């Protein structure tokens, strides 16, 4: 196969990234949470939120570079979306919100390359750990992360993700 490059996303990658985000949502079987008609809004927000003066997130893309002589251009086949978090124990850390590789490009170590790039960024920025979440049925992903040395904190220490949203949050706010 031609070579793979893991690089920082540019504003011009937004269209590709949005396409892959939708594929990831379908893969996680949570895509019914978002309607197609909202995609234009999401695209605009994604662009502003990630490529403005104070980005809310950072993104890496996995790009297949054609071999010399091949007619097609480079092709974005995966991405990793992350942001910085803070722990009062350890200081700044990274949270990898999304990681996805198109199905036809799996099994070639691209996912591992994305994670390793995130690890480099984390160390570069003085972070001592990074976290991510996986769905319990996604055995392939869990096996990959464990093979790279990650610990399942939900299993080991009982940590659960909770959320206040919609009506519950408005009630809390006293509205």
């Amino acid at each position, binding site marked *: 196969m031609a070579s793979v490059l893991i690089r920082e996303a540019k504003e011009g990658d937004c269209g590709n990234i949005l396409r892959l*985000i939708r594929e990831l949502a379908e893969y996680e079987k*949570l895509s019914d949470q978002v309607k197609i008609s909202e995609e234009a809004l*999401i695209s605009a*927000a*994604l662009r502003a*939120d990630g490529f403005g003066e104070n980005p*809310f*997130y950072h993104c890496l893309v996995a790009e297949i570079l054609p071999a010399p002589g091949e007619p097609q251009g480079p092709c974005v086949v995966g991405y990793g*979306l992350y*942001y910085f*978090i*803070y722990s*009062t*124990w*350890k*200081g*700044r850390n990274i*949270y990898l*919100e999304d990681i996805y590789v198109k199905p036809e490009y799996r099994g070639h170590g691209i996912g591992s390359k994305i*994670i*390793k*790039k995130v*690890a*480099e960024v*984390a*160390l570069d920025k003085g*972070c*001592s*750990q*990074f*976290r991510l*979440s*996986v*769905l*319990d*049925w996604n055995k392939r992903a*869990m096996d990959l992360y464990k093979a*790279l*040395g*990650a*610990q*399942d*904190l*939900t*299993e080991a*220490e*009982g*940590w*659960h*993700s*909770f*959320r*206040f*949203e*919609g009506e*519950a*949050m*408005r009630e*809390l*706010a006293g509205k």
Partner: protein
Amino acid sequence: MLQNHQHLELAACENMVDAVKLTANDLLRDGFGENPLFYCLIAEVHTHQKPTSKVTVGFAMYYFTYDPWIGRLLYLEDFYVIQAYRGLGIGAEMLKRLSQIAIRSQCSCMHFLVVIWNQASIDYYTRRGALDLSSEEGWHLFRFNRGELMDMAGEE
């Protein structure tokens, strides 16, 4: 201003005092500089002994995270009221303020982690309408520590 001793009291509760590596100076730089990495609410009471002085009895530490579908979310990293001041509605008042901050900051959700074996905490949040996404949708939280990061970065 965040009191370092209170943070250690929380750590003692979770039996992990040795794991706290940050100093008051770290918190000062990271939370109160030009680009804060976190924000804090504190709950203060006036003491009887000296009416003009105040004591910090609770705090909430939060920052903003991102979901590509939903946009910004408010993430509650730490939330604590000291033992002697519980049951007075201080926690509820802080949650109210946090929700107002979330709504004002265009966040549609507030999320946080709870240890599932801490039944008192689980009841406290579910009673107020929080959803357990780990139970409902199957999310597991994974972590890579520094050693693993160095191994991975060293391979490239």
